[in-house]
């Protein structure tokens, strides 16, 4: 069903000036292959949480774009991201989702790779080779045939990211001031630095949607809530119980629209709110919970005020290209793994304060599960839209008509944050999506790092603002 016409630059398909984006980028398999080749191996991708591999030898199986990887912790406690494919004949050396081992032995011919730094110079290196002498007469350069390691890996407050490109900018430069949202995700509800961990168990499921629908939805599409989630708002599944919002905003703070603005980064990242939108924690029908979170909010407020840091920035948000998260209610990370132009594997991790008492853990876990994931009463309706938007865009006639991204076109508001602007409105406004797809096209067209960096240095959108 997919005419292949990507003989032009994908940039030409993304017209941010007119606010129109071609449907091709959501359904064309050739463009999808360009994404896999030019975007994912150069972007910083979320692979897992450090709390999933607490002890030396612990490993967690994950994916980076189209490649299976292993997140491992070596004997010194260092984290590594290794390509889960043997260098001899490519066998996936580990087919388990998690476990503990200091050595990955390939079942095919038993090449073994060690993550013990006392046995190999670099964890992941080739260690054991059956019949080594006889087979290679000493000519095998073992150090050259270890499991491929991601050259860049960073553990940001427990959030582990990897990048396959040696020349990629450092994580800090890639993230920019969007880091504030990551901080709110990784810090505890009471503001304790890196005070979170993930519950055991990652939900993984397949949807028949282009992966970008997912990223776009969380980076600032607050416009879809009223319609997409009408049913769940009607029944009320939030902390406040029936009749209350599903995220549990306190009405007396002006609720959803109280001064809220979306934040869009030239680097492609986007958030549904702004740091200044200091939405307190929900009111809970359950007194014990209400107490706990009221206290947490107070503690956090005090801490952050002391640092002169605003209390907002809870998301939902998306770190370019495919890690989405919410630092609030629920508190969860999503990665949209691309499978084809029209299929995606979604992974969800759920976070909780390391210090949270059991009654809080349990309450949150129940809430998370009824809210998000394939069983989540909220997310189910999102996926229906993503799938049928993808499907109905595959037609030859449909492809002639671009999507409309004109909300708040030219109305961006300047931001105190570097390389960022804000939407002109709390609910409406598609500035985040426009920035996301502009950045997406720059990567997929395979611009050099020099070009990519230069383009992101100045945010022409902000300038245009001041010009006005």
């Amino acid at each position, binding site marked *: 069903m997919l005419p292949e016409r990507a003989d032009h630059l994908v940039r030409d398909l993304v017209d941010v000036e007119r606010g129109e984006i071609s449907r091709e980028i959501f359904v064309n398999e050739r463009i999808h292959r360009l994404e896999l080749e030019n975007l994912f191996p150069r972007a910083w991708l979320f692979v897992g949480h450090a709390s999933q591999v607490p002890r030396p030898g612990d490993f967690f199986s994950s994916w980076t774009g189209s490649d299976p990887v292993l997140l491992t912790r070596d004997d010194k406690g260092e984290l590594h991201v290794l390509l889960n494919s043997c260098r001899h004949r490519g066998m996936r050396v580990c*087919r*388990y*989702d*998690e*476990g503990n081992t200091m050595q990955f032995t390939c079942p095919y011919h038993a090449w073994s790779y060690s993550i013990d730094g006392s046995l190999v110079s670099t964890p992941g290196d080739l260690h054991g080779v059956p019949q080594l002498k006889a087979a290679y007469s000493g000519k095998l350069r073992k150090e050259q045939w270890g499991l491929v390691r991601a050259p860049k890996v960073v553990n940001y407050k427990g959030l582990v990211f990897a990048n396959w490109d040696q020349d990629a900018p450092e994580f800090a430069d890639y993230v920019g001031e969007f880091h504030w949202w990551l901080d709110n995700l990784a810090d505890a509800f009471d503001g304790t630095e890196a005070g979170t961990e993930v*519950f*055991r*168990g*990652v*939900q*993984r*499921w*397949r*949807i*028949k949607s282009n992966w970008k629908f997912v990223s776009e939805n969380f980076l600032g599409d607050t416009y879809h809530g009223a319609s*997409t989630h*009408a*049913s*769940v708002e*009607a*029944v*009320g*599944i939030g902390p406040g119980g029936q009749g209350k919002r599903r995220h549990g905003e306190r009405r007396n703070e002006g609720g959803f629209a109280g001064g809220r603005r979306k934040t869009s980064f030239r680097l492609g990242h986007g958030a549904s709110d702004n740091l200044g939108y200091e939405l307190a924690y929900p009111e809970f029908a359950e007194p014990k919970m209400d107490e706990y979170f009221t206290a947490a909010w107070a503690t956090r407020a005090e801490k952050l005020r002391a640092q002169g840091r605003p209390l907002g920035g809870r998301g939902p948000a998306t770190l370019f290209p495919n890690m989405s998260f919410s630092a609030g209610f629920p508190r969860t990370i999503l990665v949209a793994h691309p499978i084809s132009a029209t299929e995606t*594997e979604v992974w969800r991790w*759920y976070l909780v304060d390391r210090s949270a008492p*059991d009654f809080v*853990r*349990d309450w949150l*876990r*129940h809430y*998370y*599960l*009824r809210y998000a*994931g*394939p*069983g989540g*009463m909220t*997310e*189910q*309706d999102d*996926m*229906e*839209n993503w*799938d049928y938007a993808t499907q109905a865009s595959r037609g030859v006639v449909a492809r002639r008509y671009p999507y409309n991204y004109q909300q708040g076109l030219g109305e961006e508001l300047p931001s105190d944050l570097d390389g960022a602007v804000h939407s002109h409105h709390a609910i409406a406004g598609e500035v985040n999506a426009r920035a996301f797809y502009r950045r997406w096209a720059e990567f997929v067209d395979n611009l050099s790092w020099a070009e990519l960096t230069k383009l992101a240095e100045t945010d022409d959108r902000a300038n245009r603002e001041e010009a006005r």
Partner: protein
Amino acid sequence: MTVDEAVLERLALHHEVEDFLYREADLLDERRYEEWLTLLAEDYEYTVPLRLNVRYADVREREDTGAGEIAWFDEDKSTVDLRVKQLMTGRHWAEEPVSRVSHIVSNVRLESVTLPQVDVSCRFLVYRNRVADETDFLVGRRRDRLRKVADGWQVCRRQLLLDQSVLLAKNLSIFI
């Protein structure tokens, strides 16, 4: 030789239980959700753990997620009530249009009988088709705790072991 009374009682009980489970499936597949809710006890507990890919040696300990861990479902009746309400709004898009569903219940066994409670195990194959070619198979083992009440039976606990690790369905918007 004649058949022992105890055996006959067991037969009758087994039949009762099967009939109850089949009737429950009928209510679900005919989308008579409100009637279905009356078959769930007030203390109903519903859990569907995640299944992990682990080595043979770790199956007992680590294959299924457990208490305090993430699952596909882990809820009580109040949440099931909300799900039914959501379906009936007519705006629960994941089920508009509605799915066509068949609950195939087989291998029904009474695992333990301590009236009024009975623990029952079975296999389920839930087939779902929707719109044109959306098709899902949800298959696995189920353990139910049933309780005999005045006018029949109720489910007070249900645990499903779904034979998938990566869920191959876009959602779980039907009752499995």
